[in-house]
Each structure stands twice: as C-alpha cells, then as structure tokens.
C-alpha cells in the first residue's frame, strides 16, 4: 500500500500535518488495510500522473533555487538566489503591483459572478441556458484577443477616453501613465465577465433543494433573507474554490500585462511572474527564477490557508 510520500516538496508544507500524519500513520498502519484499499485505488491513476508530471518537475525546480544553473556544470550556492531575489530592485515593486491586482480583481470577480448568477438563477431553464452561454462564450476568446481589444479601447482617441470626454474629463494616457496603467489593467480584468464563476455558482445553486426555500417561505422569510441565510452559506464550497483558484491565478498574472504594457511605463505594471519569466527566458538564470517562484508560492500558500480557514465548511444538501 503506497504510503503518503514525504518528499522534498512536502517538507515546505504543513509541518503540523506531517507530524500529525506520522503519529496517526503508525497507529493506523496496524489497522485494517482493506478498509482503505479502495480509497487509495481511486486516487492512484491521478496520483501517478500527478507525481510524474508535476511533483518531479516541481522538486527539480525547488532544488534549482539553491543552485546556479549552468549547462555543463551547476553549482550549489545555498541561499544566494533568495538573497538576490529579495534585494532585487524590482522585487518589491512587482510584489506590490501583484498584490494590488489580486486584492482588487479576485473579490470583484467573485462578487460579480455571485450577483450575476443570483440574477440568472430564478429564470426558467431556457433563459438560464441563454445567459449561461452568453456569459460563458466570452471566456472562450483568448486572452490575446481580449487584450488587443482593450488596448485599442485605451488609446488616446479610443472608446474609454471617448466616454470620459462626455463628462468633460481627460483624455488620459491610460496605458502610458504610471498612475493609470495598473488600474486600467485591473479594470479590464474586472469587466471581463467571470463566465466560469457564473457557471459554477449556477451549478451550485441548482443543487440546492427547493424544499429548503419552501420551508423558509412558510416561515415567512423574504427572498433577500433566504438568499443570505440559505443560498450564500450553501454555496460556500464553490466560493472557496473560486477564491483559491482566483488568487492563485491572479498572483500569476502575466500574459495580459505583457500584451498591454510589457511591465511599463517604468515598472508600474511589472508583476512577479514578469521577473520569473525574464530570469528564466531572457537571462538564463533558472536558479533565480526558481527562487522567485518559491517566494511567490509561499505567499500564495499563506493566502490559501487563510481562505480555507474562513470558507471551509462541511455543507451538505
């Protein structure tokens, strides 16, 4: 029976869990294996693939952070890459930009998805399907296309400046000014409909039995109250999923920024993944890239922990 593998990658993680597992483990080893057989079998295919194509590369990348990568010889340099990462002139700016982006975009997108899904949910199946499609289809447009459209909208004589000229403001050099470039990119992300979120929320809302709402109505609850007291809590698992995945994704924002401003003007829109990308693909410094990645990973992990703490529930319908 394959024991949980405690490898290099695992050591960074949940130390507490490790100790707990070790304790639990020795006790349970003696117990009934047959009971757990099916559990492990069900996970096996996924785990084999996961281990081969994700864990092994991740471990390699992890060790690389402590080395100076060379084609013919790689030297062990301990924490030098991490020192270089933290003292880099761009690191803190990139971190700040990435934080600003994530902390705005993720809550906004989830809120919008929630509101839209809640608005769609009461309608008949046919109308639901129509809106589900309408809000999903845009996600099919590649990021490249969306970025190009927005870049065009942000030009000096583009759509956005046209709108604000009606209010007698501007024109603003959106993508060219240090103050407005990042907000412009954030706006683009927020206004791109969260099709995935809408679909997931709708799916979750669809699974809530009508009987709960009926019972609430009998007790005299209005629609807003039942939304707050019944719907929201019961879709928490979906919310947790969207928050965690959204955070992970936003922290890694890169392609849109590359297409719109390439990190500029100055460093106003440089993000953490920019640094990683440049270190790996321009400077051939894979060790530094790995060090940056581990730092990024650590930050996101902390966020994820907090999110799990607040949003994890054992909800059943």
């Amino acid at each position: 029976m394959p024991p949980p593998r405690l490898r290099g990658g695992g050591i960074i993680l949940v130390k507490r869990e490790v100790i707990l597992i070790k304790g639990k483990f020795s006790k349970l080893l003696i117990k009934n294996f047959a009971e757990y057989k099916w559990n492990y079998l069900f996970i096996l295919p996924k785990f084999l693939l996961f281990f081969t194509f994700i864990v092994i590369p991740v471990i390699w990348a992890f060790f690389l952070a402590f080395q100076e990568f060379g084609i013919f010889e790689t030297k062990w340099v301990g924490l030098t890459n991490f020192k270089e990462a933290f003292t880099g002139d761009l690191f803190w700016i990139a971190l700040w930009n990435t934080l600003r982006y994530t902390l705005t975009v993720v809550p906004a997108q989830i809120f919008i998805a929630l509101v839209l899904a809640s608005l769609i949910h009461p309608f008949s199946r046919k109308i639901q399907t129509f809106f589900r499609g309408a809000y999903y289809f845009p996600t099919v447009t590649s990021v490249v296309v969306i970025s190009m459209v927005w870049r065009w909208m942000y030009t000096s004589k583009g759509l956005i400046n046209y709108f604000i000229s009606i209010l007698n403001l501007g024109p603003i050099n959106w993508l060219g000014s240090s103050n407005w470039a990042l907000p412009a990119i954030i706006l683009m992300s927020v206004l791109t409909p969260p099709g995935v979120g809408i679909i997931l929320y709708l799916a979750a809302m669809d699974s809530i039995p009508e009987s709960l709402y009926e019972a609430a109505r009998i007790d005299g609850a209005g629609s807003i109250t039942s939304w707050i007291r019944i719907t929201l809590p019961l879709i928490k698992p979906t919310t947790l999923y969207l928050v965690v995945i959204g955070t992970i994704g936003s922290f890694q924002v890169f392609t849109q920024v590359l297409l719109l401003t390439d990190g500029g003007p100055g460093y106003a829109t440089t993000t953490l993944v920019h640094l990683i990308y440049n270190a790996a693909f321009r400077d051939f410094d894979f060790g530094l890239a790995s060090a940056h990645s581990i730092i990024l990973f650590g930050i996101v992990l902390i966020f994820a922990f907090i999110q799990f703490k607040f949003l994890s529930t054992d909800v059943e319908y």
Partner: protein
Amino acid sequence: MKKFILLLIGIVLIAAMLAPSVLAESKVKITVWDGFRWPNEEGDKYHWIKSRIAKFEELHPAVDIELVEVAWEKLGEKMNIAIAGHDWPDIGPVDISDGAVNLKYVEQGVIEPLDSFFTEEELNDFFPAALNAYSYNGHLYGIPTSMTVHALMLNLDIFKERGVEPPVDGKWTWNEFVTKMKKLTFDRDGDGNIDVYGFSTYVLKGYYEAWPFLMMDGGKPLSTDNTKYTFDSPEAISGLTKFASLKFNHKVSPMEMGSADVGGCFQAFANPEKRIIAVEPWASWAIATLRNNKKYQMNFVVAEYPTGKTGESVTIGGSGGFVVFKQKDKEKLKIVAELAKFLSDAEQQYTFAVNYGTFPALKSAQAMDPFKDNPQMRQAAEMLKYAVSLPRHLNWPQIDERIQAQLQLVLNGEKTATEALKTAGEQVQRFLK
C-alpha cells in the same frame, strides 16, 4: 462509447509510433532551426531554407537534415528551454532584431567557435560591424548573413499635402527636422483637434528606434570598454531632452509617443485607414513592407536621423545570421560548419537582400548590387556607415531594461531627462561588474 475511446487511443498510439521515422544508421543527422522568411507563391514562408537543405542533401548523400520551423517571436523561449534541456539543434538562426549572437549562450559554452573554418580572405569579406556582432573574446561565434539599420520613414503623401520638402539626400539637422515636423502637424478635418502629427515612435525594451535621437549629441550608453555607464553624460541628457521636447514643447507628437504599443504605432503610420503620422523610425524590415505589402504600400522615402551637436548622423545597426551549436563529434562539426557556410554564402545574402529587405553582411554580396531598383534600400544602405552596434555586454538585456523603463517615464512626462538617466545609472551598476 468505451470502444470509441479505445479506438481514439489506438489512433493516437499509431500516430505517435509513425511519427519518428527510422533512419539508416550510417547517415549523419543534422537538425536545423529557422524562423520564417519571405513567402513563395504558395505562401510557404520556409521555402528558402527548405530548398537550400534539399540542395545540400543532394551534394552530400550521407547527410540527413531535419528542419524545425519556429516563429521568430517564440524562438528565444523555445531555444532557451531546448538548451537548458541539453537538446539544442546543430544550427540555429539569430534573429536580426536581436542584432547579435546571444552572449549568454556563448558564455555557457554551447556555441561552437568557427574561426578555424574561415580563411583570412573570407573574414575580410565581411563588413567589420557584422563580424563584430558575432565575435566575443577574440573568437567568431557564428556567421552573419544580413544586416539591418534603423532609419526614418517619411510618408510623402502627407509631405506633399502640406507642401513640405523631404530632406535633401535624406540628411537634416535637428532644427530643420523640428521645423518640418511642426508643419506636418495639423488639424485635417477642421474640428479643432490635431489629427495628424509629424512624428511618433515607441519605447520598449529590446527596441531601439528611439535611441539614435538620444545619441545625436554624442551620448553613449556605455563606455567603449563596457565597464562604465555613460548615459548620464550632458550629451546624452541633451539628446533625450530634445527628443522629449518633440512631444511636450513642440507638440509634434501624439500622446501615444513613447508608449509600449509597437503594433499600434505601426498601424498609425502605415494603415491606409489611419496614416496620421508623417514620420516614424523603423528598422529596415519596414522598407520591404512599405514597398511590397499590398495593404501597407506607401509612397515613401527613407531619411537619416537628424544630426545634433556632433554634426554626424547616428543609427543603430544589427546583424542576423546562423550559429553552430556545440558538437560532441569533431567529424560532424566539420559537416555542420560546412552547412552553415552553405546557408550563408554571398549568393544567399544577395537573395535575402533582394527579397527580404536586409542588407548583406558580405562586401561581395553588396557588390552584386541587390538594390538597383530600390531607392529606399539604397538610401538606408548609406546609413550603414554611421551604424553603431549596441554594447557587447553580457548583461546588456538587464541594463537595457532599466534604461528603457526610465525612458518611458520621461516620455510620459513623469520624469525629467536628468532624473531618468541618473536613476537608470544607479540601477545599472550591479550589472556592470
């Protein structure tokens, strides 16, 4: 349903097994990467290298050459990973926009020096600037096949519309330039807003269209021995100040000038629906486009960058070509080097020049007069004399990034030239060691 899936998987298995063909053991296998060039009638952008490969295989029956087609934009990424994965090709192209052989690769030791494969005579046939771009520490690390310069493209229709004469012989001083730009900035439809601007360009790391302006008073990014940052000299500052004044004082440039939008900049100049900029600097690939591309065809001439205090025009040149990657087998190296030379001889360089809008790197190819019917290329070819190359410093990309970032902040009005160039200097110190 299950059967269908099994069938699918079966198909995939078979396809995967058929993919790598079985080669005769005795053949020498050479892998060549190339980016696309000009298309033939069928639209095949790789036809040039395919025909050269076929020719070489004819002459050398024991050699089997595999071509990998790579889009230029993605060449760097794909190449980096292949190299890191110890899976480099035998021959790879150098993107002419990069301007020179990649020093990081040379430093890592994955590029074969080719000195022993060239005679003194052959080496003398190369233009010194081209050879320089492929040399490092006294060795030759590749073969230059083409050269490029940056030049100003002038939309003659707008000049005519405003009754402005293009500069004689393509030469103008800074003051002449500004005067003309002012005349070319106007309100075309009478709505009170300026519709057409005299000049625009973009600022983006790795691109140098704007730099000859910064250098026109004598400013240089690094000292000749590449150990000191010199871009905060009074000459550089005055160059940058003049450049920024186009937008802020003389108002001959739109808000977009100095932004990172390369595509938008080109569209504003060349798209027939727009054409709202009279003059834009571009690398010489634009000449071929503005001449031949059905959509972007333009009535245009080429001019030099205006001269500043030094009285001499300056431009930035670069060189594209091929490199040979490290070989384990000395015998194979000989054949690969021969193939590399086969791809880069004078005949090929002439062909490139005629079809692809590049300048030859060989004097003998230039002597074949590829531009007899091409006045714009001939004008640009004159500029090769003034072309300087970028500093050959190992960390140039990082240095460049810092400088370009500060330049962007000058052109959006947030910093003065002095502040920007001084800040860049501080940031760049750690890379100069």
